C-alpha cells in the first residue's frame, strides 16, 4: 500500500468507525429490540420473532390510521409543493426584474423550523367558531367569504390530516422551486430556440420539451420531500398535540416507547419507518451512482 492510500485510510477510519457504531450498530440493536419482548424499564431480549411486526401490520388500528394519514399527508404535501414549486420556478425563469428578491422571499419559510411553522399555523387554522372565531376563519368571515370558514384539521378523518399538508407545503414549496429553477437554468437555450423554430407554442415548449428535461430535478424533489413526509413528527405535534385522528407512525413510536415503555413496539415502528424511507432513497442512490460512473 502506498503512503497516499494509508493516509487516506487513516483519515477515513474515524468516521467509518463512528458511523459504523452509531448508525449501523444501533440499527442492528434496534432490530434486536424489535424482535424481543422488552416492555418496561428492565431490558429483556427474549426472542419473539416477528410478533411485534405482525401485531402492528395486521391488528393495530392506531398504526393503520398512522399509515393512512401519512399517505394522505404525503399526497397533499408533495403534490402541492411540486405543482406550486414548478409554477413559481417557471415564472421566475421568465427573467423578472426583481428575480433575486422573489427567490429569497419564496425560500425564506424554509429557514424556520417545523415547530415554528406549526405554532403559527395552529393560530391561523384555529377551528373555533362563533364568537371565539380567530385566525383565517375570522379573516374569511370579515371578508364575507363565509363559505370558506371551516374546521381545518379538526375536520373528521380522513380529510383532517390533509390540512396539515398546507403548512408543510408553505414551508417547502420554495425549496422545490429552487431545485426546479436550477434545473431550468441548466437546460441549454438552443433547445428552446430549436423547439420554437420547429413551430412549438410556448405551452407546447414547456409540456413537451422543458418539463421532461426536468426529470432529474423532479426526482430530487420527490426523494427529499418524500423522506421528510414519511418522518414527519414536529409539525404535527406543534399543531395538534397528540390526537389519534391525526396520528402518524413517528408520533406513535415516540408515545409507545416513552409514555408506555413498550420499547419493542417502538423499535418495530422505527424499523418500519426506516424501511419505508429506504425503499424511497436506495433506488435513488443507486441511480445517481450509475449516472456518476457513466460520466
Amino acid at each position: 500500500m502506498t503512503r497516499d492510500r494509508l493516509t487516506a485510510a487513516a483519515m477515513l477510519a474515524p468516521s467509518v468507525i463512528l458511523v459504523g457504531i452509531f448508525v449501523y450498530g444501533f440499527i442492528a440493536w434496534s432490530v434486536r429490540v424489535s424482535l424481543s419482548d422488552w416492555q418496561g424499564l428492565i431490558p429483556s431480549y427474549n426472542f419473539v420473532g416477528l410478533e411485534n411486526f405482525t401485531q402492528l401490520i395486521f391488528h393495530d388500528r392506531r398504526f393503520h390510521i398512522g399509515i393512512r394519514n401519512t399517505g394522505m399527508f404525503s399526497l397533499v404535501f408533495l403534490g402541492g409543493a411540486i405543482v406550486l414549486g414548478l409554477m413559481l420556478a417557471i415564472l421566475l425563469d421568465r427573467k423578472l426584474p426583481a428575480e433575486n428578491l422573489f427567490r429569497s422571499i419564496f425560500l425564506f419559510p424554509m429557514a424556520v423550523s417545523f415547530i415554528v411553522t406549526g405554532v403559527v399555523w395552529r393560530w391561523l387554522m384555529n377551528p373555533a367558531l362563533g364568537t371565539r372565531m380567530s385566525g383565517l376563519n375570522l379573516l374569511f368571515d370579515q371578508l364575507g367569504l363565509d363559505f370558506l370558514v371551516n374546521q381545518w384539521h379538526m375536520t373528521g378523518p380522513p380529510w383532517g390530516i390533509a390540512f396539515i399538508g398546507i403548512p408543510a407545503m408553505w414551508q417547502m414549496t420554495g425549496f422545490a422551486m429552487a431545485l426546479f429553477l436550477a434545473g431550468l437554468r441548466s437546460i441549454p437555450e438552443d433547445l428552446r430556440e430549436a423547439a420554437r423554430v420547429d413551430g412549438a407554442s410556448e405551452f407546447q415548449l414547456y409540456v413537451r420539451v422543458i418539463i421532461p428535461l426536468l426529470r432529474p430535478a423532479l426526482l430530487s424533489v420527490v426523494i427529499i420531500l418524500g423522506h421528510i413526509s414519511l418522518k414527519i413528527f414536529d409539525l404535527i405535534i406543534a399543531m395538534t398535540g397528540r390526537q389519534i385522528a391525526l396520528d402518524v407512525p413517528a408520533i406513535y413510536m415516540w408515545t409507545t416507547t416513552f409514555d408506555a415503555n413498550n420499547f419493542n413496539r417502538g423499535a418495530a415502528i422505527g424499523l418500519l419507518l426506516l424501511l419505508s424511507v429506504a425503499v424511497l432513497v436506495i433506488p435513488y442512490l443507486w441511480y445517481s451512482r450509475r449516472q456518476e460512473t457513466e460520466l
Partner: protein
Amino acid sequence: MRNRRALALLAAASLLVMTSACADDEPDIVDDEVDDIELDDPEAAEYDVLESPPEEDAVEVFTWWTAGGEAEGLDAMIAIFNDEYPEYQFVNAAVAGGAGTAARAVLASRLAAGDPPSSWQGHAGQELIGTYVVAGQLEPLNFLFEEEGWLDVLPEAIIPQISHEGNIYSVPVNIHRANILWYLPEQLDAFGVDVPTTWDEFFAVAEELEAQGVIPLALGEAWTAMHLFETVLLGTMDVPTYDGLWDGTTDWGGPEVAEAIEVFDRVLEYTNPDAPTLSWDQATQLVIDGDAAFNIMGDWAAGYFGAQGLEPGDAGYGWAPVPGTDGVFQWLSDSFVLPVDAHNRDGAIAWLRVAGSREGQDAFNPIKGSIPARTDGDRSLYDEYLLSAMDDWETDEVTGSLAHGTVASDAFKSEIDTAIGLFLSDRDAAGFQDGLVSACTIAGPC
C-alpha cells in the same frame, strides 16, 4: 456562468434541507426542554456537569415542580428540611415539562445509567408501581410508615392503592381530586339552569344550554378526554365495580362499561368541537368567559380560577362532584420514593420524613393548592374550596384516578388512551369497548 450560479443556489438549498432534516431526527420537544433547564436552572444543570458523584451529604430530589405554586410549595418544604436536617445539603433537581413527561424521560435515562437521585416525585399508585416497583427500583417504606405513625393519619382506603404485594412504596405529600364539575354560579343563574347531580339531569340541562347557544361542557386536549371518561366511568357504576376494572374483577366487555361508553358518547355531543386544540386551562377559561357552562377537571382548576381573580363562592366560582359521583373522592397524589441504592440513603429518608410530616404538608399544600394527604392538617391555612375537599377526603369513599396514574400502569393507561383516541375520531362504541378489553389483556391485569 449561469449554470454555476444555479448550481450554487442548488447547493445552498440542499444544505438548508440537510440541516433541517437532521434536526428532524431528534425528539425535539424533549431535547429542547432539557436544554432549557441547563440554561435556566443552574441547580438542575449540576448533575449534568458534574461527572463525579455528588457530595456525601447531598440529598438530590427530583421533581417536575419548576414553576408557580408548585415550585414555591417545594421551596417551603425545602426550608423545613434545611432547618431540621442541617447536616444534609439539599439539591433541587427539578426538570420542567407538563405533568412530568419530560422529567420522566430524564429520570429513565438516569436509572438506566445506574445513577438514581436520592428521591423522586411520582404519582402515587400504579404509575410508580407498574413502572419502577416491578422493575425492582424502589425500596418498601413500611418501616417508615410504622415509625412515623402515618398509617393512623392517612385514610385507610388509600393504603392498598399505594401498595404492591403488601408493601408501601411511596410517601404521598398531597391529594388532588379529579371528579369535580366547575361552574360560575352567577352565570348558571343567568342561563337559568341548576347544577346537575346525575347524568340524566346533565343531558336535560345541556339541551337548555345548547338552545341558548352556550357550550354545555368545555373540553380540552386528549388527556382531558381521558379525565372526562374516568369520571363518567365512576359516575355510571359503583365504587367496587370501578375498582374492579383495575384489578381484573370487573369485565371491560360487560354491560357496566357499555353503559359508561354510551353516556360518554352522549356527553361528547355537548362539548366544544375545537376541544383537541385547547389545553386544560384554555378549556376552563371557556367557562370563565361565559362561552361554556361547565368544565370537568381536577381541583388544580381552583388555582386557575383564583389566578383569574375569582374567589370560591357564589360571586366567584362554584364546584360540585361530577354527576353520579356524589360521596366519592377520586384522588391522585404526588408522592416521594426511596430508590434501591439511593445516594445518601439516610438523607433520602430524612427528606421522606419531612414530606410525610404534618408540618411539611401544611407548608407545601396551601401554596400548591392541594390538600394534605394526612387528615390532621391545620385547617386555618386552607381556603374555602380546599376546606371542603379536606372534609370530603375524610368522609367520602375514596378511589383512584386513571388519567393521573393512580389505578393503572403507564402501559395500561397508554393502551386505554389509544382506545379513547380512536373513539374520539370514529365514535364506534362497539369498537371502543373491544379496544378497552384488549387494552386490559395486552397491558392490564386481565
